[in-house]
């Protein structure tokens, strides 16, 4: 019995690992009488795997059987992999028992599509319903809406879960048709629209009546695969910008394409996932969500891809040197946020602190501004603008070189006692070569 669950868990957790989202934030709920669990608005990460990603929710597929054959997916039906299916009760037991030991914040439930979308969605909903009504579980539940499932099922599920998400995976319609011919774009967009309308309707009603059944209170999110299809970064950012503004999505996740199905000719042949590109996309995403940037400011029409050498904020500053230097003691919050080296926290502290006294570079350093970057873009009391007459290209290479210098220095601190390539005389050569 135990053995069986172990095996299933191994297969289904392994199959679920390519879903990036794991956040448990966005909703605050206290425990009910006789119930278990609550939700914390900021979310809590309970562990971190060797790849540095957090484990907040118990992320699992209900089954990795799938009727679809999408080129980018590890669980496609033509792949020869171990398959397993959890029963509803098994997922509920695992969730509750992990939760009681404070291993997790809640459940992230996804699934391959079995039989048809409706059947799958119904099973997923059953898990959420059972957790909420029978186990009186008040922890976080994140559920995948299965594209193509009926509206009632998605609506119903929305009442039990905190967050729902539909993964768009491939950013454009043509590419989706090419890589996942059995899926279609409208079937993905429809549930997304339905959820965002449901949330709006809930908010509207909540204004009139105190007791309205909550509908996905933590909003919805989605995920894009980066690098599996030839879309430009500009297209991707524009798409996420639309999601944030039109559908009020809470998060868009970017997943650097891992070559999981190397045999498929439709996919690009790459050795390792495009991690730097993914990182730059996330940085741009942050700029849109917290730094008041618009997608068009991050990448202009003549520049479809993000610069991999410098972060998008620095790239923006270098492209718009005419806006700088700005005066730390006068500039408004919006402009402070645009200075490379000043983050949200520092910008807020600067605005607060300068009401008391004029700030100098010493103060900025203490507050936590990265002066190494910021110094080229600001003036404050005594600090003169530095090298602003440089051309952008020269300034860029200067800053990049400075940051690489730091990395090299960090590696050089400890001298090696023996040079790694040097053969130690104490060890006979033959022995050594065996190692």
């Amino acid at each position, binding site marked *: 019995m135990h053995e069986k669950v172990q095996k299933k868990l191994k297969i289904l957790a392994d199959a679920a690992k390519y879903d990036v989202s794991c956040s448990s934030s966005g909703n605050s709920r206290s425990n009910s009488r006789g119930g*278990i669990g609550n939700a914390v608005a900021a979310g809590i990460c309970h*562990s971190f*795997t*060797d*790849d*540095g990603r957090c484990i907040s929710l118990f992320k699992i597929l209900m089954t990795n059987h799938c009727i679809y054959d999408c080129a980018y997916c590890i669980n496609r039906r033509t792949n020869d992999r171990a398959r397993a299916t959890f029963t509803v009760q098994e997922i509920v037991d695992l969730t509750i028992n992990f939760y*009681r030991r404070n291993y997790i914040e809640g459940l992230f439930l996804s699934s391959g599509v079995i039989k048809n979308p409706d059947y799958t969605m119904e099973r997923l909903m059953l898990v959420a319903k059972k957790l909420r009504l029978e186990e009186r579980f008040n922890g976080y539940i994140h559920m995948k809406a299965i594209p193509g499932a009926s509206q009632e099922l998605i609506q119903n599920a929305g009442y039990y879960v905190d967050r729902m998400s539909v993964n768009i995976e491939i950013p454009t319609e043509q590419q989706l048709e090419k890589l996942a011919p059995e899926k279609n774009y409208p079937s993905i967009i429809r549930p997304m629209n339905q959820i965002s309308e449901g949330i709006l309707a809930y908010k509207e009603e909540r204004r009139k009546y105190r007791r309205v059944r909550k509908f996905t209170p933590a909003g919805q999110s989605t995920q894009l695969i980066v690098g599996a299809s030839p879309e430009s970064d500009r297209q991707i950012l524009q798409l996420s910008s639309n999601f944030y503004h039109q559908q009020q999505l809470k998060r868009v996740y970017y997943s650097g394409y891992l070559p999981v199905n190397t045999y498929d000719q439709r996919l690009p042949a790459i050795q390792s996932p495009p991690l730097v590109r993914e990182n730059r996309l996330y940085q741009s995403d942050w700029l849109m969500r917290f730094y008041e940037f618009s997608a068009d400011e991050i990448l202009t029409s003549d520049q479809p891809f993000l610069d991999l050498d410098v972060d998008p904020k620095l790239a923006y500053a270098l492209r718009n040197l005419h806006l700088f230097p700005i005066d730390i003691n006068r500039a408004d919050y919006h402009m402070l946020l645009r200075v490379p080296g000043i983050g949200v926290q520092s910008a807020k502290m600067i605005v607060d602190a300068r009401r008391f006294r004029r700030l100098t570079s010493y103060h900025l350093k203490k507050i936590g501004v990265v002066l190494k970057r910021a110094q080229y873009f600001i003036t404050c009391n005594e600090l003169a603008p530095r090298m602003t007459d440089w051309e952008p290209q020269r300034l860029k290479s200067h800053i990049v070189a400075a940051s690489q210098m730091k990395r090299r220095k960090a590696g050089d601190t400890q001298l090696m006692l023996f040079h790694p390539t040097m053969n130690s005389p104490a060890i006979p050569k033959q022995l050594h070569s065996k190692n």
Partner: protein
Amino acid sequence: MAYLIYDGSFEGFLSVVFQCYQQKLSPTNICKESDFQEVLFAQKQTIPSNPKQAQRVWKALQKKLHRRNQELPLRAFLSEHPGIEMMLYRFIRRVFDTSFSIETDYGDSDVLQLKKLERKVLKETARLLQFVRFQETSDGIYFAPIEPEFDVLPFTLHHFKDRFADQQWLIYDLRRDYGFYYNLKTVDEVTLSEKAFSTIDGKVNTNLLEEKEVHYQKLWKNYFDSINIKERKNLKVQRQYMPQRYWKFLPEKSPRIKD
């Protein structure tokens, strides 16, 4: 040179502040009794802890401080940073002596430093919420050992009481040798004289564990290993978010649990 010596508790410290106002003292240093080293040519005065006086200072502070900063003095004090007493003393004097709020004057090194120390303590509090791991014992109590850097366990009780309202739990601070027990109604402070668990990593003796406990620890470790993407290995980030000093309490990081 005036040295004021107090018993090391927050209450004691607030009493010192009270006495400074009452006796018009201007201390050059405020020291814990345990840390004090004799100084030649220095006046020293021991100030006894007085709950009433401490309460008066605390209440006055609450009136002056913004809601967001009301816990700041206590949290910053808990950081046990060397020199925290004088920093707090100067801060409190400034709070009382100015008619407007100076809590966001980050150009002032005291205010900034206190804010940073508060952040540090809050971070440690958050880590407790993250890395406390319960082991179910055969008598139905969920037991969790922990060793926070600062004495922040009391700040987390509200969270755990709400979250695990229907299970008895005991969270024990191994370093400071005290803990809190929830008996389904109230949370009480306890100190265990006889310990049925390891005082190093807090593992409960196997014969006292609930029979399924080991099974669930194995399942969790299995899950932890399976959800990892090997191609994206990044141990540095892992250590950054999950400091190694917590690993001994985490079943997923324990080498003793094997599949």
